[in-house]
């Protein structure tokens, strides 16, 4: 009988620093038993418990897309016991994973629609999965316009920078990036402008006229969304980022005309079992691990504000 508590053995195939503060690393994991790879069927937005015997487990969103074969990608910040142990690993180390767990972004429902992806900081992981999935040559035709708005505190804290460069050049999607460097009297803002980051009208972001070709800005994510003004017509918004970013982005999306049933968030809570038994990650009657982590704003409106 399948036992949901037992991890599947994997090998750490590749490790690299994601951000210059060296707190975030990306790990490519490969299954030791190829049979496990076949049964590990996942979708963008799902997560897995990274399991290090002797240390514990940590729930992390899957950053690779099911269209990428042969490995699973996890981008992990060094925070506690498990993630620190993971950061100390060398390539070749053996560990376990449990999953895939949770639900996923509405990839079926969004077919034929425009998709706006909005991410902040290192919460971009499962959004990367979604983006790669939709841009896949077999899937791209299923979706309308793809707009991606991604921000971090500073340029060196953006994840997947090589890929961001590639996506910038693509004709079948629009990528807007922003950084929220403190805007001093001189200093960072000039430095930012010199490296291609353009200011926007922060007081009235929606009055900003975005010149064609300019895709990098100094702004907070909600302001950039307001300036880019993605159309809500036939469109879905997928939002993932720190709580403060979500808080200020939702009203902008609502003003742009996105109804709550077409705004999706990915949430997190402290988790242990990942299968809706251990009882700690609930928001009202819903468990983030089993009923989420992806919730539409409409669903969230019907749940208590306890997250």
């Amino acid at each position, binding site marked *: *009988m399948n*036992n*949901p*508590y*037992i991890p599947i*053995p994997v090998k750490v195939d590749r490790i690299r620093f994601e951000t210059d503060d060296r707190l975030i690393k990306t790990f490519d994991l490969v299954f030791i038993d190829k049979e496990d790879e076949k049964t590990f069927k996942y979708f963008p937005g799902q997560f897995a418990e990274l399991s*290090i*015997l*002797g*240390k*514990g*487990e940590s729930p992390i969103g899957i950053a690779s897309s099911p269209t990428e074969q042969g490995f699973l990608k996890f981008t992990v910040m060094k*925070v*506690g016991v498990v*993630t620190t142990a993971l950061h100390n690993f060398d390539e070749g180390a*053996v*560990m*376990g994973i449990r999953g895939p767990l949770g639900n996923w972004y509405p990839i079926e429902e969004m077919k034929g629609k425009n998709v706006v992806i909005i991410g902040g900081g290192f919460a971009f992981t499962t959004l990367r999965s979604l983006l790669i999935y939709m841009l896949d040559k077999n899937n791209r035709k299923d979706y309308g316009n793809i707009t991606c708005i991604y921000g971090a505190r500073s340029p060196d804290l953006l994840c997947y920078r090589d890929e961001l460069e590639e996506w910038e050049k693509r004709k079948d999607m629009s990528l807007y990036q922003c950084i929220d460097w403190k805007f001093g009297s001189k200093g960072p803002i000039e430095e930012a402008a010199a490296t291609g980051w353009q200011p926007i009208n922060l007081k009235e972001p929606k009055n900003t006229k975005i010149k064609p070709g300019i895709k990098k800005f100094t702004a907070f994510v909600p302001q950039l969304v307001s300036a880019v003004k993605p159309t809500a017509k036939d469109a879905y918004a997928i939002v993932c980022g720190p*709580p403060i970013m979500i808080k200020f982005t939702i009203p902008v999306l609502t003003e742009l005309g996105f109804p709550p049933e077409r705004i999706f968030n990915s949430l*997190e*809570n*402290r988790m*242990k*079992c990942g*299968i*809706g*038994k*251990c*009882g*700690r*990650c*609930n928001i*009202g*009657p819903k468990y983030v691990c*089993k009923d989420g982590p992806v919730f539409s704003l409409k669903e969230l409106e*019907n749940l*208590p504000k*306890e*997250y």
Partner: protein
Amino acid sequence: MKDSLNNMKYIEKNKLVELIKELKKDYILIAPVKLKNFVLFRELKENEEPYLDFLNSRNSPKEFFFPQTENIVEFEGIIDKRVSKLEDIKNKKRIILGMRPCDIKSILILDKLFINEDYVDNYYKRLRDNTLIFGFGCNKPRTTCFCTSFESGPFFKEGSDGFITAIGDKFIIEGITEGGKKLIEKLENADKDMVKAKGEIEKNANDTVPSSVKVEKIPEKLREMFEHPIWEEISERCLGCGVCTYLCPTCHCFDIQDEVINERGRRVKNWDSCMFPIFTLHGSGHQPREFRYQRMRQRIMHKFNYYEENFGVIACCGCGRCITQCPVNIDVREIISSIKNVKLTISNEK
């Protein structure tokens, strides 16, 4: 269910020890045992006798299905070399003798969480599958009992494989499931008078339960009360010690921890409690339930609203342990009554 005479057996109280001796050959026998100041369920040791002259045990026997600490895996040396899997864990059949109907009801409640179509907790299921339960009717409920509030009662038999009723110097034992009937087939049949006496006790049993609360519509009402000020009021004197959650037969929250000594280690499921702040503390420092009233709200909401919404049953069996053991006399019956008395205004409704 009409009692069929064939399934009704009896044994003299002083002969029980012999029966147990017989059963112990093939089964692990778990029964209430008298310790210094309280009664506890535990595996009977060599020549240990069960103590059946009790009201209820201090701890809930849920631990025999959902142990306080349970190994998920054991490991040794290199961290990926697992030395123990589920199959290795001992599988001897067990009998729990003398479990009270409220506690049996609680297991029926827990079944819905641990064994459902989403995921099956194999550890729980294994213990559930290899255990026969002999329920024990309550001739004399405690003052804090309120089992009849939850479609249960002092002679509630669902979930029992066999059921024991004490009459005078005899135990009448009723076989309910095939497994239960088989265990007692060698006992002598009860006669008509015994069955009649048993019927008499059962007939008025529900009236002997000293307290009850009306829980109809409580789940629906709680849905509108998340933001209500009542939670701060109720939790004012709570110490956050968590004893209610540890003794509660339906509390099932657990933690998963890894323990390593030298080269040997294990990953364990441990009971946990929603009354502790660390239960929900994020790695980032973010805390969704920062205040005690939020944690008290979670406990009550989980039992009387969320669980009902997810599984169609309230997660309380009316055993009263949280009432008798609370160091500051918080009474869940009073909490339910105050919820009932709340007049919802428009602003409390979403």
